[in-house]
């Protein structure tokens, strides 16, 4: 599945929810399902700065593809991160760095990209793209 196909799939899933609570319960559930990182990988090096809650992001390459693992203290952030990983993980660095992440706005979560939230979703996206650029051959 391409990055955009996964984004469209998520948008479709969110169309089922008619109130905010259902939407957030789903995100919270995604947060709970995210595997997270073992304690030894929650290092200063992997931490994403500028977040109200701490977020850790790790990347590794298998063949031509880049994979992400992440964790956070806050469950909603974790749910959002789960979706980002679902969209971006397992693609080539080139596809990741060029991706237009329109699904965030379409599912009504763009406020989480706003600076005031300081929850690091924007920093997270930036860091994922930085990894992709770093791994681009």
């Amino acid at each position, binding site marked *: 599945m391409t990055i955009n196909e996964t984004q469209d799939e998520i948008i479709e899933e969110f169309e089922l929810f008619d109130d905010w609570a259902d939407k957030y319960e789903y995100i*919270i559930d995604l947060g709970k399902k995210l595997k997270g990182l073992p304690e030894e990988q929650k290092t200063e090096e992997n931490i994403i700065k500028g977040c109200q809650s701490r977020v850790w992001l790790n990347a590794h390459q298998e063949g031509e593809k880049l994979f992400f693992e992440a964790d956070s*203290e806050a469950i*909603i952030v974790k749910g959002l991160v789960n979706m980002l990983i679902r969209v971006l993980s397992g693609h080539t660095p080139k596809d990741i760095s060029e991706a237009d992440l329109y699904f965030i706005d379409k599912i009504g979560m763009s406020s989480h990209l706003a600076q005031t939230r*300081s929850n690091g979703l924007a920093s997270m996206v930036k860091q994922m793209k930085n990894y992709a650029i770093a791994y681009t051959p």
Partner: protein
Amino acid sequence: MTATEILDIQAIRADFPILNQEINGRKLVYFDNAATTQKPTSVIDTITHYYNFDNANIHRGIHTLAERATRDFEASREAIRDFLGASSIEEIIFTSGTTQGINLVASTFGRKFIKEGDEIIISGMEHHSNIVPWQMLCEERGIKLKVIPVTDLGELDMEAYVNMLSEKVKLISVNHVSNSLGTINPVKKIIELAHAVGAKVLIDGAQATSHLNIDVQALDADFYTFSAHKLYGPTGIGVLYGKKEILNAMPPYMGGGEMIKEVTFEKTTYNELPYKFEAGTPNIADVVALKTALEYIALHGKENIAAHEDMLLQYATEQLSEIEGLRIIGQAKEKVSVVSFVMDGIHHQDIGVLLDNQGVAVRTGHHCTQPLMQRFNILGTTRASFAVYNTTEEIDKLVAGLHKVKKMLS
């Protein structure tokens, strides 16, 4: 009659147009007053009126508008003198806010009167703005910074403070009220003890002026600083009070127009107080509107406002305490209307996001007091802070909102 009955809160709410709106489909509940209060129509109208009819640069102008702007600007200074109980308008300096007030004292009084080997005392519940300027000064000058510890209840350990005092201590800088905990600190006692060893005291009044009666002469404070926007006034304006003899002995803060008497390339002589510390064109409109904010408070009576807020604090403390797994951080005997809390197993950011979706605005995080959070071994709190226009019904919505948060996260 209770303060709430005297005050007609519904009429007061009508004075704040911003409150009458929906956020995410719910009626806004604004509980972030310790960060900034909302502004009554009278304050907003003063700013509009100033720009529509009176705008001119103040002092020195001889035309009518300049006279009018100067008159209103200086009338505000007199209103603030009265508000603080200062003896002279020469002791009232306009700043951009509390942060600038503290930095001004650190840069001028600090550099001139505090030397290597001397000591400065702050407390463990200070805002970063009352920590960092002193750290910068201490690093530059080889001065030692000491910190009054905070007890489990969120009060200052006064015994430890007494033991810190010596003739090496030149300045104590503490807040009147803690922004994170709401604790009212015994500043009169702190000042009295400091003066006994010859030290000066700066009081950060940012969180106190909207709740407590301030009398700088009764306190015998050497410096007292606050921001207008936390007491129903505009942002970008604040006040530094300083005792006249100390301000006179201090060098100027910034150089420029207004603060000079005479300038030649060989030598500049400085203007008199308070203008010596007011370089450049000030924030005239907002200074004028600060007076309107003080009038708004006076109209309703600070005692009535404080009594209403106390009632809200008691009610919120009772209601929140009943939520299982919720722990209030800061249980000092003397508090203003601020309730900071943590919930078992729930990150404060999740609480903030989910309350916002229910129309309830609270503040979450470390509240610019990271050392205090470390003291309590927490990452941050959720803070609800109340103002004159808040109601018990709104607290009920917060409580219901928190039950919903718990349910969603369980």
